[in-house]
């Protein structure tokens, strides 16, 4: 019916609206799941101060009771969402500061690190992946494979430490983490595209390689690579947790790690919501692009 009333454009907009609704649902569920995760974690209702030997039994019990106030994750989440509509996100239990202030201070740090790291990683992967796939020289492939394998063989935490040692910013570690994870895809997509029968046929007919690449190979690779772009954003944000924690960079990753260790419910729920919002937004845009490129389902 929708198709009859609105036509192809109408269907497109309905699909986009459906995708947007789905993103909102995911966002709401992620926040709730984050709150439930904290609630399930052992030690969610104890405070580090409770092992202070100078504290009396009464004080220890009082501190414990204060921590246990947000016992029900659902009721906490409902209250949290209602205060969120007023622009409040509660107070951090670890830092004793307003969560909005903490996030505000740190978001720009992480956004810069992750953004620059992703840009470097994608440029390097696209250039190198395409060059290796087009070169047809096994030695080049072996070299590139060894390079990506080397980058994959170093734990994110150690990469962060090495970057620090070399006086490189944490974005270098993010780039080094993301690059080897996207390079094989770029290479595989370009190589597979070049091996398709009609491409081989075109090459046999003498169509210039650049034209073949731009018109026939790249469009086929675009879909999976756009999907990968969405994933790489999430990957970079996830990588920022150990990188920032070990490099002592005051971004969201470090905040998330300390909040996780301290069972800081308001901070963890806010960060979960923020990361989900970024993930769903990026995936939404990549799906939209896929849709525009001709893949129907979003």
């Amino acid at each position, binding site marked *: 019916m929708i198709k009859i009333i609105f036509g192809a454009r109408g269907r497109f907009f309905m699909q986009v609206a*459906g995708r947007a609704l*789905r993103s909102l649902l*995911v966002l709401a*569920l*992620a926040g709730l*799941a984050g709150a439930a*995760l*904290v609630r399930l*974690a*052992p*030690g969610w209702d104890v405070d580090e101060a409770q092992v202070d030997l100078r504290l009396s039994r009464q004080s220890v019990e009082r501190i414990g009771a204060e921590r246990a106030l947000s016992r029900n994750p659902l009721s906490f989440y409902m209250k949290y969402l209602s205060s969120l509509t007023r622009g409040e996100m509660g107070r951090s239990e670890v830092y004793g500061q307003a969560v909005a202030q903490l996030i505000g201070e740190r978001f720009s740090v992480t956004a810069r690190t992750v953004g620059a790291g992703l840009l470097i990683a994608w440029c390097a992967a696209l250039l190198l992946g395409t060059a290796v796939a087009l070169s047809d020289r*096994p*030695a080049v*492939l*072996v070299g590139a*494979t*060894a390079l*990506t*394998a*080397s980058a*994959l*063989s*170093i*734990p*994110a*935490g*150690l990469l962060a*430490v090495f970057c620090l*040692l070399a006086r490189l910013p944490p974005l270098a570690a993010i780039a080094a983490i993301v690059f080897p*994870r996207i390079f*094989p*895809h770029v290479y*595989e997509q370009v*190589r597979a595209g070049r*091996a398709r029968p009609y491409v081989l046929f075109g090459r046999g007919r003498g169509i210039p390689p650049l034209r073949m690449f731009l018109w026939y190979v790249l469009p*086929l690779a675009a*879909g*999976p690579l*756009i*999907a*990968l772009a969405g*994933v790489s954003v*999430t*990957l970079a944000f*996830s990588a920022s*947790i*150990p990188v920032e924690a*070990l490099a002592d960079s005051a971004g969201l990753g470090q905040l*998330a790690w300390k909040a*996780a260790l301290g069972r800081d419910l308001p901070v*963890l729920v806010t960060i*979960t919501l923020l*990361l*989900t919002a970024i*993930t769903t937004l990026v*995936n939404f845009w990549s799906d939209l692009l*896929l849709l525009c490129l001709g*893949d*129907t*389902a979003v």
Partner: protein
Amino acid sequence: MRAIRLLAIVFLLATAAISLAADWLAPHDYAEQFRDHAGEPPSPRFPAGTDELGRDRASRLLHACRTSLLLALGTASLAISLAAIIGGVAGFRGGWVDSALSSLMDLMLSLPWLFLLLTVRALLPLNTSPSASISATAALIGLAGWAPAARVIRANVLSVRNSAPLLYARACGLRDYRLLAVHLLPNLKPVLRAQFWIFVPVFLLTEANLGLLGLGILEPMPSLGSMLAELQNYDRIPSAPWMLTPAFLLLGIVTSLHLAMAEAKTWE
């Protein structure tokens, strides 16, 4: 260049065989502490030197290799199977099934899984054997880690599903299962392989990262992760370069995996 691929396969097989035979090949018990020989350089008695507690590095490396390889391969198999099923079904079925599964993927990608790992690790019984702890860790990482691959697989399925040969095959009346088996799965092989290559080192490193945070495989059982954690003391590397042995071994394994599992025609 086939020789290189062959070399990589031989290296992997040799590493797997040697590490599986660690119980017989290791010169010492991996947990035994020779406290009067702590921090020694390589010698005939200790071929790769000893660690700070006097444990034989060579014996620990053999056992670490076995532990980490089994963990990574098991975890990668679990994760890739889940990703293939969920991503494949989402892309192939479309409609509300796709919407629901894609939402699940988004949710899985968004949640702080490191926190879940911490939580489940803390909930495990304390008197578990190291092997039970390894299995639990592997299952957990696998169950949490399939989503990125599922999204890529879904995109590939979408791409192939709407390609001309598939549309033609569908128009010819081919049934779904035949479409899947004959046309879709063979086209997915490159992406599944790429994801698997990516997963193995990723999960090797997930264990290593947990080791760096002190939450890896329990002492005294060694793993590549716990041995790599020693590299945090990078100052010591110039005076004790044999500390790099686990890093080089991991590098060798990961590179060989990439080379060995590359499609044969790549080399032609």
